[in-house]
Each structure stands twice: as C-alpha cells, then as structure tokens.
C-alpha cells in the first residue's frame, strides 16, 4: 500500500512542486498520475524513494515512513524509470542478479533469473546479451523483470511507456495487469492518457503541485479521459 498525507514540497528556489497532496493506493490497484511537465508527478516519486525530503506531510509504503525510515520503506518497493538505465557492459542476467541481490534476493540460480526475464517477454537470445545492445523496449522489460524479481508489495513507475513503440507499450501494459493480479499497489506517472485509460483503476490529475482531481475507472471507462483531463485542468486554472 502507498499512502501520501498532505505531502508538500517547496524547492530552494521557491517553486511549490507539491501542495498538500493526499491519496492512498491499495494493493492490486494501478493509480495513474496525469499532468503536464512540472505538475509534481516525478517529485512525488522522488519523495517516496527518499531522493528528496518533503517540506511537510508524510509518505508511507507498506506502513513505513519513506523519509524517517527510508531503508525500511524501500524494502517494499520497486522502481521503474522512464529510461531504465542499467550497466551496459553487463549481460541482462548480470544486471538482474545485481539488482535482485540489492533487493534482498540472494543466491538465485540462472534458471530462476532466466524464467523471470522470459516472463516479461524478453527473447531467449537477449538473456545473455550485453545491455549496451538492448533496445529501449527491451530495457523497459528488464526493468519490469527487476521489479518482479524483488517481488515487493508496491511498484513506482515514472513515465514507463515514454518512447516505447505501440507493440512494446502493449506488452508492457500486459505485464502491469499481471502485477495487479498479483496484488501489487502500482503508482504510474504518465503523459500518455491513452495508456492510462487502458490500464488505470484510478487516475489522479495534477496541476502545479496540486492534485486537482481523482477519477475512478467507472468514471472514465466509457468517457473521453482526455476531455476529463482538459476540463479538470481548466477548472483548476479558474479556481481561487
């Protein structure tokens, strides 16, 4: 479970990146954060991973305070970035083993590592290939494999479908569905309204650090999510 309570972040230069944001993501739920650049999506992820400290408020992963006990909180979360950047000179297997061990999964056999990579759709020849020869889609899949092998209750994804071709993006969404079925609480930030509509159980719309709206799947399943998004953004602009 991921929980944000009145989370606020003001940077040193005075910019208010997050303004009293609160929401909870339950196990087995995919929560997509939509918003323009600078809306505060990545700042949220950065606070959850203790890359930066909040100005006020708190964030929890699986009940652990992310900023007071970050090492404890990070035991229960995996992170998939916009560009999964791993070690180019290592093979996929070496990369996966390294991050698995960082995630507390030690002594895994090659077979176990290969099974996880196969399960995310990496072709057989890619398992022992060096990462420098990987396409972006393949790297994103390996990023999912890293998240899977750690098997945490929560997963953070920062623009994971950005730059993926349609086929790779669809395969990626399939993987997300599997993770949801396994009860993971998933926070995904994205610009991609189309993909968000396909996968999200709830969407949060952010503007200038504020969470201006949260819509459940039922509310946008048969509606135009883009229109909802634009409407909420306009409303936020006119709001006092």
């Amino acid at each position, binding site marked *: 479970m991921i929980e944000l309570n009145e989370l606020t972040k003001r940077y040193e230069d005075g910019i208010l990146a997050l303004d009293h944001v609160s929401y909870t993501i339950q196990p087995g739920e995919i929560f997509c954060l939509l918003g323009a650049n600078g809306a505060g999506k990545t700042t949220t992820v*950065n606070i959850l*991973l*203790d*890359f*930066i400290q909040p100005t006020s408020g708190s964030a929890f992963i699986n009940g652990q305070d992310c900023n007071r006990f970050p*090492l*404890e909180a*990070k*035991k229960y*979360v*995996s*992170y998939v*970035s916009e*560009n*999964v*950047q*791993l*070690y*180019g*000179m*290592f093979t996929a297997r*070496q990369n996966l083993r*390294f*991050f698995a*061990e*960082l*995630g*507390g999964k*030690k002594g895994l056999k090659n077979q176990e590592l290969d099974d996880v990579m196969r399960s995310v759709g990496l072709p057989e020849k890619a398992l022992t290939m060096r990462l420098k020869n990987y396409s972006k889609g393949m790297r994103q899949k390996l990023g999912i494999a*890293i998240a899977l092998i*750690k098997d945490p209750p929560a997963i*953070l994804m920062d623009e994971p479908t950005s730059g993926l071709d349609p086929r790779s993006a669809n395969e990626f969404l399939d993987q997300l569905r599997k993770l949801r079925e396994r009860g993971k609480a998933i926070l995904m930030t994205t610009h991609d309204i189309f993909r968000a509509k396909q996968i999200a159980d709830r969407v949060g719309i952010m503007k200038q650090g504020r969470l201006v709206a949260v819509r459940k799947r039922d509310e946008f399943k048969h509606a135009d999510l883009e229109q909802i998004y634009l409407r909420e953004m306009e409303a936020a602009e006119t709001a006092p």
Partner: protein
Amino acid sequence: MFRTLIVKEITETVLDLRFAIVTVLFLVLIPLGMYVGREDYERRLANYQREHQMYREHYGKNVGASVEAQGFRHPSPLSIFASGLDPFIPDKAVTSRSGLVRAVKEPGIDNAEALLFGKADFLFNVSFIVSLAALIFTFNRISGEKERGTLRAIISNSVRRPELLLAKIVANYATLLIPFTVALLIALLILGTSSDISVFSAEFLSGLAAVLTITFLFILVMVCLGVCLSTFTHNSIASIMAAFLVWVVFVLGVPKVSPMIAEVVYPIESRNVASLGQRIAREQIEKEFDQKKRQLYDQCRAELGLDLNRFSSSPRDETEKKANARYDQEVVAMEAECQRRVTDAVRQLEQNYRNRRSIQMSVAVNLSRLSPASCYTYLVASLSGTGTAAPDAFIRNAERYRDQVKQTIYDNFVIKRYGGTHGGTAVTGRAIEGFDESKASIPDMEYQYTTPAQALRAGWMDAFLLVVFAVLFSAVAFVRFNKYDVR
C-alpha cells in the same frame, strides 16, 4: 549487500576499457622503470668500485703527514626505487690536515637527458603514472553513475549511501592493485636477476616492505581523492576536468612551487658562499695566530740574544736550538688556542648556515606537504637514501671519516713551523714514535645510509599526513555523497 556492491564494482571496472589501458601501462612502465633503475645502480656501483680500487692501488699506501685522504660513497641499493637527490649528493669526501673536509661530486656521471627529464624510476612511476591511473579509475564513480541513471536505480533499493561509497573505494582500490601488484612482481623478478643486489637481505627486504607499504597507502589516498571528486560533480566531463586539475595541482604544482616560494620568503646564500665564508674565517684566525707565533719566535730568539734578521731554516748552534726548544714549548698552547678558535668559528658559521637552510627547507617541505604526492616522495626518497636528509647524511659521514683519518694518520705526524716577523718559515714534519709510515694506509669511508627504521621515524609526519589525506578525502566524500542529489 556490501559484497554485492563490491563484486558489481569490480566487475564493472574490469570490463571497462580504462582497466585494460592501465594494466598495459603498468605492465610496461613499472618493470621497465625497475630495469632502468637496476642498470643505473649497477653502473654506479661499478664506477664506485673501480674508482675506489684505483685510488687504493695508487694513493692508498705510503701516506704522508699532509695527505688528502679520499673516502668514497657507495650507492644505496634502495636508490633503485628513487634516484631522488642521488645525482646531486657528493661521491667522495676529501680530508685535509687543517680539519676541513671537502665534498666532491664528479661531473658527467649521469647522462644529461636523464637529469633534464627526470628518471622514470619507481617513485616517478607511482607518483605520476599510478596516481593519474587512480584518478582515471575513479573520477566518475559517482557522477558517472548519476549521468547514466544507474545511481537512481541503486539508491531506490535499501542501500545505505556510506556503504555504496565505501564499496566503491574498496573495489576500485583492490582493482587498481591487481595490475599494479602483477607489474611489481615482474619488476621484483627483474631485480632478483641482478648479482649486485641482495634482494633477500634483511636490509633490502625491510626497505622494500616500507616502500611498498607507503606506496599502497599513497594509492589509497589517490583512490579516495578520485571518489571524493566524483561526489562534487554531476557528469563525467566535469569530473575528468576536476580530476586532471587536482592532479596537476597536487603532483606538479605544489611540489614544484613550494621550494620557489620558500626561496622568496626566506632567501639564504648558496653552499659555495657559505663554504668560502668559513674558509676566510679560518684563514683570518690562522693569519692572526701566525703573526702571534712569529712574535713569540722573535721573543724567544731575542731573549737569548739572537739576531732577529738572521733567520735560518735549521738551527746553526746550541743557542738557536735552545730558542727553538723554548718556542716549541710555548707555542703548543697558542696552537691549541688557534685550533679551538678555528673549530669554533667554522662550526658556528656552519651551524648558522645549516640553521638558515633548515628553516628554508622547512618552509618548502611544509608548504609542499599540502600535496599527498610530496609526502609520498619525501618518504620513499628518504627510505631509498636519496631524500632531503641525504646531503646532511653525507656531511655526517664525511665528518666521521675526517675524524677517522685524523686519528689514523694526521695525529701520527708532528708538524712544526718556525718563523719570525722578519720573514721566512721553516717547516718540519715527522711521524711520532712507533708509527710506521710505510705500513700506514688511508682508511676506507664506511658510509652509513639511513636505515628504513630511521627514515620512517624521521618521516613519521609524512606517513601520518598520508593517513590524514586518506581519512579526509573519504570523510569529505561521505559527507558530500550523503547530500548528493541522485535525481
């Protein structure tokens, strides 16, 4: 976790092109440097042995009262590691009856190119090449990971930042030591093939152990420095520029500028000027006493009614013999006084010069200690017997040799000078009773280099500073990395 980070770091470093380049560089330069050092030592040793033998054969026997004895300095076996000041340390000490000892450095022994560009010995290879390699290994260990985005991926796990940084220091240090140790073993094998160097002698082994310990410590300092610098930058280009700049300052700038600053801040005269001053002081005192002795001689002759203008180099009658005998009796105290004043004056001038030179050197040394490369150089050169203390060590050896020659030769001859104020001097010299001139020979100078233990005791400050540098760079790196923006 720590083991995982170390294994990853070592694997990443070994797979890097930098590792291959550094390995080739080490495998070529370090054994080559040792080979050149060995050849150089063997040549110097052969020169020493040849000169020493020729001197003994032609001048060592049938010594006279005023012989100028020559004592030769043999090269230090440990100078293979650092030639240091060796090209400038005198090769021999020449004694004289007056009590002065002269240091002689024969020109043309070292080839000019070697002096102009500096010898690529072990010290050079470590302080220049290995230090640069250490920075090349580590300059972007943090900033590079941030640039690639892998730092974010690592820190998103339950990884303590100090643990990650420590793993980087340990792994890079260990990885750098692999090619260095292999190159070193090859270099030591090359040394072992020399018939002139007893590699397994206790003296050589203790020196080698001390040099290697200090070298490993210095490499650790440079690795810590590289990792530290990588926490100040956020991309590889900025890191390499910072690393190169710091390397230039530490390895080239500070050591070379410090003596120049010391010369400006505390100027002193040259050794030649100081020696000339001592010589003039000695001659003035001797001249003064010579006049007094002549007056005494006149007095002794006048009291016995002898004509002062009729001086003869040998006594012509009993009255002149009596005058000479009386003079011999009374001049002893005067000569002793003269000798005492000469010794005091020369010693004081020498001490003044040494004190001023010591202050200037201390300014230079302390300034240059801002650089770990200087601390390392002082220590290794000192352990090799070619450090900043080597010229003073030579003087100590030369003075000891002078005393030895005085005891075995000069003190066994009596020289008497007769002469009044009206001109003319008669000099007589003869061996004291029981001393056989024909069997006398010039003693050898038993040159004693500083032992490794003595060098370490004298250079404890440099060793301590190297430890301080390692701790300081690591501490700064830890502080910086704890606040490092990994986004």
